[in-house]
């Protein structure tokens, strides 16, 4: 009976840590449910030092009008976002990437929806000049395969 009880406690403690797919962290998950691996790939991903340089590089490149790179950054380092005290060096970059992605997406979506819903009534003849299928026809973008 005791054996099964200890088994259950260890497995339940290892529960939150297995989000990273790493049962090896069950030893430290009893103390804190901190994951060992900062990337979403777990043991197949990067170590913590490499993660720092990757997170920093993704964050900086995202400023070149690449919010999708910020989103990929957040996806890749999801364990860092989820466990707020786990990786203190990597976390600022990932959090800022998430913030940047949200802001950019909000602005882009609002512009795109305004354009789509407003249509000609809002923009006048400029709408026809800006909409993509007219631009494609005008510039012959679909002709060359």
């Amino acid at each position, binding site marked *: 009976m005791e054996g099964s009880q200890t088994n259950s406690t260890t497995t339940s403690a290892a529960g939150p840590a297995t989000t990273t797919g790493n049962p*090896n962290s069950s030893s430290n998950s009893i103390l804190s449910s901190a994951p060992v691996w900062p990337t979403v790939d777990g*043991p197949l991903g990067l170590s913590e030092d490499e993660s720092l340089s990757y997170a920093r590089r993704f964050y900086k490149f995202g400023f070149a009008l690449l919010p999708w790179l910020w989103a*990929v950054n957040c*996806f890749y380092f999801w364990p860092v976002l989820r466990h707020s005290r786990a990786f203190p060096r990597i976390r600022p970059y990932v959090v800022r990437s998430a913030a940047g992605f949200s802001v950019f997406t909000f602005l882009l979506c609002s*512009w795109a929806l305004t*354009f789509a819903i407003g249509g000609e009534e809002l923009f006048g003849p400029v709408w026809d000049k*800006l909409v993509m*299928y007219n631009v494609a*026809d005008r510039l012959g973008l679909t002709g060359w*395969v």
Partner: protein
Amino acid sequence: MAQIQRPKSFLDSLGEEIIRIITPVSICMFIVVILVSILNTDSSSASTTINNIATMAYAETTSDSFWDKLKGALLNSLVFVAIVTVVTFVLVLLFYLRCTQFLKLYMGFSSFIVLGFMGGEIALFLIRDFSVPIDCFTFLVVLFNFAAVGVLAVFMSKMAIFVTQAYLVVIGVLVAYWFTLLPEWTTWALLVAMALYDLAAVLLPVGPLRLLVELAISRDEDIPALVYEARPVTNHHSGSRDGVAQRRLWRERRNVGNDSEENLNSESSLDSNLTNGTVDGGHHTTRLARAEEGQLLERDAELSAPLIDRRSSVQVHGQGDAVSSESLLLEGIGLGSTGAIKLGLGDFIFYSVLVGRAAMYDFMTVYACYLAIIAGLGITLMLLAFYQKALPALPVSVALGVLFYFLTRLLLEAFVVQCSLNLVMF
């Protein structure tokens, strides 16, 4: 109360490995079929011939006679295969001269072209067909993002596995859709020709892909190529046993007699985008080892390098695609050094071309060709387990697919249609 654990056999994870390689192939084929059926409904006559590298010998029109079309198609496919052979030999030469940086740059550049231009063009087709009211700034920003992150995913070896796999499937879809725009006879002749070329290039001792694989193995390097590598199957249930893998089907080892590294290598089971099997030399044995997870993870913690890097002996044989990126090494199925299955992107592309072409006729042929291709892929995987070396993944699947396409079109369709019309079945 003690729990009796069923001892793990290799069958437990064999299915998962196969699923992890069949799923992306199926997704690629599915998306190509969807694109073909959406975008090609109005241009089924296709009187406009597309001038590209695959039709430069002969531009097929619908009004030619049977023999003219056949001769033209064969000529086209011969020219294409000749170009691909030359380009692959150039690739082998560059790899031999250790210009790997140039090859990686070229790979990134060609991915950018495929994702940016061809992806943009297909998106424009869709926008035009559905009259999506998107403006050009948003479109450009989204396309630029998509293409730039795709280049990074393909270029960098340590991007998130899911993102890399997704982008490789997208590249396969885009190139396959482009190939389905070719005239019909040329497409079928091209498929058969590429299957034969793949067979020759991988198995003949003078074949360029075999040379490439052997060079990469002897140098213990990765070929810079677009290869899909499936995620390794990690065993979550093996706990307290010793670290030696219980199921060791194929062993891939660079260090003979080094068991600890075997376990590490064995953890990644199917990371195979490479369609090439890993050719093992005399002392290598490809192994899909499933090491116990606990042991593996401990060892992982010791090493800081991720396991994905250890796939030096898996190679992907590929064929350059006609558009720009001859560095798309395509064919071949093989095992990564970690034991993951790798399938080259060219296999994805030509499977999807076959199914896309079948979709242009009817969905009945799609189902038949899909099943034939999956059966061919299964056979190739079995052969890979048996022979444990780099194998061409195209010939069996394309042969079965083409056979089933023509059989369905000639025989099954008449039967099914007549049965339905007379309310006998279905």
